[in-house]
């Protein structure tokens, strides 16, 4: 064995010996890599052996690029067998397999009729003097007037703060919905930070989280 190696060293020189070892190693590894991707192993071997031909190393370089971006048989095979959680975001080549249903869909009973949402509304906040204010709004009353003055009627809502107008705004209820209309108050009315002007008319605040009347911020919630 030593003689053979010595012969090789003499025949090719030290550099040639390492080149042969490197080529054999590369060919072996390329064989294994392309096999793992689902290609026949000789394809990888051939790609590496091309470096020994007159074509040089440019063709294997191109083949590496082609190999990187082409479709691998492994991915095709994985489509039908891999569970949905097996694909990683980095790979992006094995989307979750679609398993067609093996049974007929059952006829389900129709859903029960949805009950009307009869919950009221609640506005809660803090006045400038540190006093808290909680206002309950009943859906049964179609309109409320919000004012700084004390409430005299059932449709009056009082917020005793100097920044609140007299009257300031109107709250409108319509079934499960709640509306707000500014009445030209100098302190201003804001819906989630956006200014509401009188010319805007009533605005739906059903999905709103917070309104501001003057400097009083009120959190809107369902009772």
């Amino acid at each position, binding site marked *: 064995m030593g003689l053979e190696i010595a012969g090789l060293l003499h025949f090719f020189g030290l550099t040639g010996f390492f080149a042969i070892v490197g080529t054999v190693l590369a060919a*072996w590894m390329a064989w294994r890599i392309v096999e793992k991707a689902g290609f026949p192993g000789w394809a990888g071997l051939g790609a590496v052996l091309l470096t020994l031909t007159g074509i040089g190393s440019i063709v294997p370089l191109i083949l590496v690029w082609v190999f*990187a971006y082409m479709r691998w*048989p492994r991915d095709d095979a994985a489509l039908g067998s*891999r569970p949905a959680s*097996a694909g990683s975001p980095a790979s992006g*080549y094995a989307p979750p397999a679609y398993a067609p249903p093996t049974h007929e869909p059952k006829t389900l009973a129709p859903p029960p009729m949805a009950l009307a949402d009869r919950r009221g509304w609640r506005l809660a906040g803090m006045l400038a003097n540190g006093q808290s204010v909680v206002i309950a709004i009943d859906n049964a009353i179609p309109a409320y007037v919000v004012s700084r003055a004390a409430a005299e009627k059932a449709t009056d809502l009082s917020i005793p703060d100097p920044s609140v107008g007299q009257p300031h705004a109107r709250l409108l209820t319509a079934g499960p919905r709640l509306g707000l209309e500014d009445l030209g108050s100098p302190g201003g009315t804001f819906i989630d930070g956006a200014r509401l002007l009188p010319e805007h008319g009533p605005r739906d605040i059903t999905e709103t989280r917070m309104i501001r009347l003057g400097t009083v911020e009120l959190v809107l919630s369902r009772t």
Partner: protein
Amino acid sequence: MIAWLLSLGVLALIFLFIGHLLLSLLLIIPTWRICQRAGFSGALALFHLVPVIGSFIVMAMLAFSSWPNGEARQQGR
């Protein structure tokens, strides 16, 4: 004369270094993708920057370790 030779040598080294970087880049880009498809970190492809043995290290990693994203041979079993 010696200074001239030295500067020539430095210039040659610089060109060699730049050439190595360019060639490495040509290999790093596809290898990065191959590593990611295999389930490894793409940064493994940066081994190409190591002169002479860098490519062998990357190939050995891909060839002799099991791929986290699965292999064709495993699926066939």
